[in-house]
């Protein structure tokens, strides 16, 4: 039995070294010292889904646990109508208002708000070079993710705030892409400004 234990320890040691190396070499690897969740140790409690319930209408009400948490963090919130108004504002075409999609490549390519920039909070180094000057120039920045209990927009907004983007510019669209598509608004596929627009 002692031999088996020693063998297990040896396998554990070699396995740990290989696992660390694999994570370090993987382009999808995580940075061990980074706090991706900005001190939020627990996720937002899951909403109890009811058969008739949809997430077609996001609110700014603090009764919503997602909104309450965002406000607690000092972040501003926009609902679906406000997001649509900002999208149709002439400033949007001039870069005064920008939308930031906080989801990963696969989801972004699968459909995002037309003209939205991508910012995957879990690999910020890949996006900061493009996003940062655009955010500096913008007057309003609307960050969104999937909607519902998705917290990636919150974490992306907090990462931008940590990078010295003024908090008063930052807005989180809690309804996210799910509400946006449910409302029948246009969606862009593929790269930003790919021209592949669909309603």
């Amino acid at each position, binding site marked *: 039995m002692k031999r088996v234990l020693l*063998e*297990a320890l040896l396998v554990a040691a070699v396995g740990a070294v290989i696992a*660390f190396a694999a*994570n370090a070499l993987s382009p999808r690897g*995580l940075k*061990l010292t980074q706090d991706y969740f900005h001190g939020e*140790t627990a996720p937002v409690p899951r909403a*109890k889904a009811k058969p008739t319930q949809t997430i077609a209408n996001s609110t700014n009400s603090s009764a919503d646990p997602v909104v309450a948490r965002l406000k607690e963090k000092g972040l501003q919130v926009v609902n679906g109508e406000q997001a649509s108004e900002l999208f149709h504002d002439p400033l949007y075409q001039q870069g005064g208002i920008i939308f930031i999609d906080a989801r990963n490549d696969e989801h972004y390519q699968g459909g995002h708000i037309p003209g939205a920039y991508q910012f995957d909070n879990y690999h910020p180094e890949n996006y900061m070079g493009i996003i940062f000057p655009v955010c500096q120039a913008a007057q309003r920045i609307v960050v969104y993710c999937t909607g519902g209990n998705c917290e990636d927009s919150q974490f992306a907004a907090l990462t931008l705030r940590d990078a010295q983007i003024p908090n008063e510019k930052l807005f989180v669209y809690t309804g996210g892409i799910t509400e946006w598509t449910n409302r029948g608004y246009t969606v862009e596929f593929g790269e930003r400004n790919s021209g592949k627009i669909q309603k």
Partner: protein
Amino acid sequence: MDPATKRKRLDFVAVLARWFLGGIFIYMGLVKALDPVTFLKLVREYEIVANPVLLNLIASVLPWFEVFCGVMLLTGVAVRGSALLLFGMLIPFTLIVFKRALAIASAEGILFCAVKFNCGCGGGDVYICQKLIENTGLMLLALLPLIGLGKKWALRFSFWRKETVTAEPAPAPA
């Protein structure tokens, strides 16, 4: 059936168990290792680790470690030690998943076996009772190489001495 044939058959079953277990851990590990962000979020949902470094460590290193142990079992290197590690990992994983399912059942007011969620095990959304049966099965399979069965077609069954069985011994001359 004579004891030698019985033993031979059991050993063959143990080899299949070793391969199956190795394959499962390689697959489950790779699913998580190739999408560590999703696994990181799922681990966070358990609310058992608050420290971000520890959380990142679990999400980034554990999947590759599972893959490594799976490869060891599949190739038959340090089999008993690897099986012990997998067995030892399956116990806390199963308990944690069980505890979380209890919490979900209580919060949503549903039957325990009706709880379906992504436990971060690598197989997506799964019913809890099915998951518990699967994990129990994996633990039982891990016991076979752990007790020393399944040496056939192993590259180096033990680190300490060569216990490889590659061919049947030639019959003794009459």
